């Protein structure tokens, strides 16, 4: 039996790996995202936030997007694709999220910026941009994220303060990582953020 298994691997695995490498070098696209000549999809910030929140902490503590510059995140995320068994699309998504989320906090984002906005409901924005870290129940999905449902939690603060924190990013006491400006989604405008805050109050407020 053991010899049979060994023969299978001898006969299939090695030639298979060599064949895959050869195909890749020749530039023949057998998937949409082939790196050698194929057109790769753009990274998606929202998907990236989810992939980042759902994968990184199973091995190590969550590293803040602000830890590295845009150009440094690129090889780091490529390395993590190999370590974490991510797909190429997930790699690009996570990179887009990290690069969108590491702007210096001093660069304040205006309430009345000219971003067109998503036009989505607060619930939809929450489920795309916020849920990865804050969780579907608002109690926080990763360490250091506050519980929205606590009576003395973040939602007990004045709305103006909350809007400011969401728009510009915020790092709570005891948390080792800051929430990026607009949750890392640069497409949100002030109206979107207000819609999300309304949803937070409706769903998790006391």
């Amino acid at each position, binding site marked *: 039996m053991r010899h049979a298994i060994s023969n299978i691997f001898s006969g299939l695995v090695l030639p298979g790996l060599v064949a895959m490498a050869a195909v890749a070098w020749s530039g023949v696209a057998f*998937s949409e995202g082939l790196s050698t000549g194929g057109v790769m999809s753009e990274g998606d910030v929202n998907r990236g936030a989810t992939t980042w929140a759902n994968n990184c902490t199973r091995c190590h503590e969550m590293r803040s997007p602000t830890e590295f510059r845009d150009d440094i995140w690129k090889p780091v995320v490529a390395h993590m694709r190999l370590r*974490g068994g991510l797909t190429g699309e997930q790699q690009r998504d996570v990179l887009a999220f990290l690069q969108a989320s590491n702007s210096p906090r001093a660069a304040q984002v205006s309430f009345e910026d000219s971003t067109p906005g998503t036009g989505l409901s607060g619930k939809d924005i929450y489920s795309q941009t916020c849920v990865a870290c804050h969780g579907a129940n608002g109690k926080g999905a990763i360490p250091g994220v506050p519980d929205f449902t606590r009576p003395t939690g973040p939602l007990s603060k004045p709305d103006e303060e909350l809007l400011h924190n969401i728009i510009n990013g915020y790092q709570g006491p005891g948390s080792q990582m800051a929430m990026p400006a607009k949750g890392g989604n640069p497409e949100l405008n002030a109206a979107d953020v207000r819609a999300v805050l309304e949803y937070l109050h409706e769903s998790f407020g006391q």
Partner: protein
Amino acid sequence: MKHLTSQWRQTALAAVIAVALPLNAAADSTVGDDTYEALKSQVEMLQQQLQQIQETLKQYEQQTVTNEEVQELKQELAEVASQQSEWKNTDSIVHLAGYGDATYSDKEGSPGAFSGARFNPIFHYQYKDLLMLGAEMAIEVEDDGGTSTELEYTTIHLFATDYLAVGGGKFLSPTGQFRQNIHPSWINKLPTAPSGFGHDQAAPISEVGLQGMGGFLVAGLNINYGAYVGNGPILEIDAVDGEIEAVEAEGRTSNDDDKLVYGGRLGLAPWPNSEVGVSFATGEVAGEDEKNNATRDYDVYGADAAYKWRNLGLRGEFIKQKVGSAGSSAAPNSASWQAWYAQAAYRFMPTNFEGVVRYSDYDANLKNQDQEQWALGINYLFAPNAMAKLAYNFNDGKNNSNADDNAFQVQFAYGF
């Protein structure tokens, strides 16, 4: 420009008024003293205003930039923007990562000592989204004051598709998780590896060969895989006692037994921040000096699981290496090495403290190497990638052996 014209108009108007008002007052000889004084004060006020306007105008003229200056500024901006773009959009990227640690250890029967000073730089060279070379060195101070330098891995990966990266070189063994992903000291929650997961124990360390790895998303389920073919390990044989001491499962560039080893791992992530995986490897191996005169079967089986739920991190792993018998060997009998561990780590939010408990059990081929261990630890996380660890290992091994001595450790680890 419009603003400038407006300023000139104001100045001219004020000047006309300032001159006209006194003349008008002088011409009208019938005005009384009160009227004269009122007009005089108005003139003085207007003169003051005129002076202020002239000063403002002078400042404005000093601040006004010429078209040439604007063009120079634009050119400078374009150059800066170009430079910004250059470092962001190069084809090749060089990046240095890695980790280091410093350890104090006090073991029963041995004097306490600062027992570890280690620096593991990791080099990344990436060409577009196509190639990545990753290499890690392990530079460590030794007992006698010397320095050991080893190449943990060096692999060139080709990102062939979104679902496959093909790599060649020396790579960390994909059988199991600890040796591949958890062993760096800034990730490992305790200063030591679990029993049986150290060098020359139950878990394979690295391999030299060819590797394919990647991931898929199937109905929202993350599936990852790694498959490899390599030279395989060799056996450390004690010819005098006729025993196999250990499997040297660390990548080497020789293949004296003329047999390759094939293996891999398949992992699934059923929930966010969870993963279960199974590993295997199979092939043939021989003793270090016996080469292909006494080859024998070699098999590895492993299973691992990890789950992070809010502040609680759970993980565990089982690994077994076994070799068959070889009649022509100085150590003809079969042998096996088996180890497993289970670990829980809990972060006491909102503080930076974390408690860790780990149980591990190692059954070696030579019974004096067996060890059962409870490790308790308390960590302080200065940052997600920097932590101080304080731990105590309750070891249970063969009486009076090194494996039986309890140990206290303090370690500071930093990943960058």
